[in-house]
């Protein structure tokens, strides 16, 4: 879906902007591949986030100008990036010590499904001929202090992605803290999905109908 297409709710950029609003200055953040990467573009003026990429860089900056491009300075999505002043390089065991040891404040990930328990499925459809590939997702959700998900509310065929129980293989159990969709911001609490905020112009009932488990008002 192009960002320009008419749609109900926030655009992808607006979703990313909404996530960025919630991240305190000084946070150490890991942004997953894809939509989560957009978050970095919308950090409000005056806030500094420090980006971690699990392939060994803290203090990651934006894409390089062509003349500064280096095929060996890349992010976890294997795109070329830069290192900001105050950056540090380290090896993979140290990088995942940061993740597993609870040193990162936040990671923002995409999702196939999120259950009301906070279970996350985002690595495999479980189809028999799929090439399984997990990367660092299971380590991130197991170790990072807060896990935010940014995702369309439903699949392309209209199925809810916020569900009672995930049917896809899990990435982690009870790991998601908050979900940002084009329709709403929703927390995972001990009671399940709890609405934090509706996209302006979107009705609660509209979101509830498209959510595969009870959606509570706060």
């Amino acid at each position, binding site marked *: 879906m192009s960002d320009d297409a008419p749609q109900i709710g926030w655009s992808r950029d607006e979703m990313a902007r909404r996530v960025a609003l919630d991240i305190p200055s000084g946070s150490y953040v890991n942004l997953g591949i894809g939509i989560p990467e957009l978050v970095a573009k919308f950090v409000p003026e005056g806030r500094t986030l420090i980006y971690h990429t699990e*392939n060994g860089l803290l203090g990651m900056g934006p894409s390089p100008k062509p003349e500064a491009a280096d*095929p060996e300075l890349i992010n976890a999505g294997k795109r070329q990036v830069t290192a900001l002043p105050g950056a540090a390089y380290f*090896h*993979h065991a140290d990088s995942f010590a940061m993740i597993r040891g609870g040193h990162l404040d936040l990671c923002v990930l995409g999702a196939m499904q999120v259950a009301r328990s906070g279970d996350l499925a985002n690595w495999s459809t479980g189809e028999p001929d799929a090439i399984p590939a997990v990367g660092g997702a299971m380590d991130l959700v197991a170790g990072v202090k807060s896990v935010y998900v940014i995702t369309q509310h439903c699949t392309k065929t209209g199925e809810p992605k916020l569900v009672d129980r995930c049917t896809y293989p899990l990435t982690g159990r009870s790991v998601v803290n908050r979900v940002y969709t084009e329709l709403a911001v929703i927390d995972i609490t001990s009671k399940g999905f709890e609405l934090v905020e509706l996209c302006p112009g979107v009705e609660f009932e509209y979101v509830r109908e498209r959510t595969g488990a009870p959606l509570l008002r706060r």
Partner: protein
Amino acid sequence: MIDKRVQGPSEAVADIHDGATVMIGGFGEAGSPIELIHALIDRGSKGLTVISNNTGSGQVGLAALLKAERVAKVICSFPRTANSTVFPDLYRRGKVELELVPQGTLAERIRAGGAGIPAFYTPAAVGTPLAEGKESRTFDGKEYLLERWLRADFALIKGRSADTHGNVVYHKTARNFGPIMAMAARVAIVQVRSVVQPGAIDPEVVVTPGIFVDRVVEVREPRHESELVAAGATYP
């Protein structure tokens, strides 16, 4: 006089035997020791177990080693990449075995191998299909999986510079798995752009101390995988 230099990539990999377990550094193309991998293809060793984060792209480097059907098993976290068709094809045809490991667990298992830690507990993958068949245990009310070390016969690694004692420094995010693979392999082979004399690298900035390194090979102008792929290169 300690001098770990060897003449070139062919000499460096000359004793990698059929059935060897080989760790190969790199995350995507960053840190991929292409020249050493190509020498290993030339060497012809078969039935290898390869431990590497990815499975290469295009038809050079790691993907070329796979395409030549020299690899019986891959232990990795992410066998799909842009321009990666070789592994998926072999895997679907049942020509290569895959052990899929979460990336942080892969790194820690390698580090454990190098550090003499036979097993450890990790929270990653608890409750997921990758926990199947694994022992789990609760510490302080939280569940963890038991994971075993990984060790290898050989490691192929790309550094920026090394001295003749084998002290290595790396280049940016090409560091990734290099330092821990050097620790976990019986024979660690490092290709670098320049080999220098002892004392030329400040002891404060050495990343991989020489004790972990067995062979150093100078490859002055290493190729980048993405450039080779863009040019449609194949190997051999």
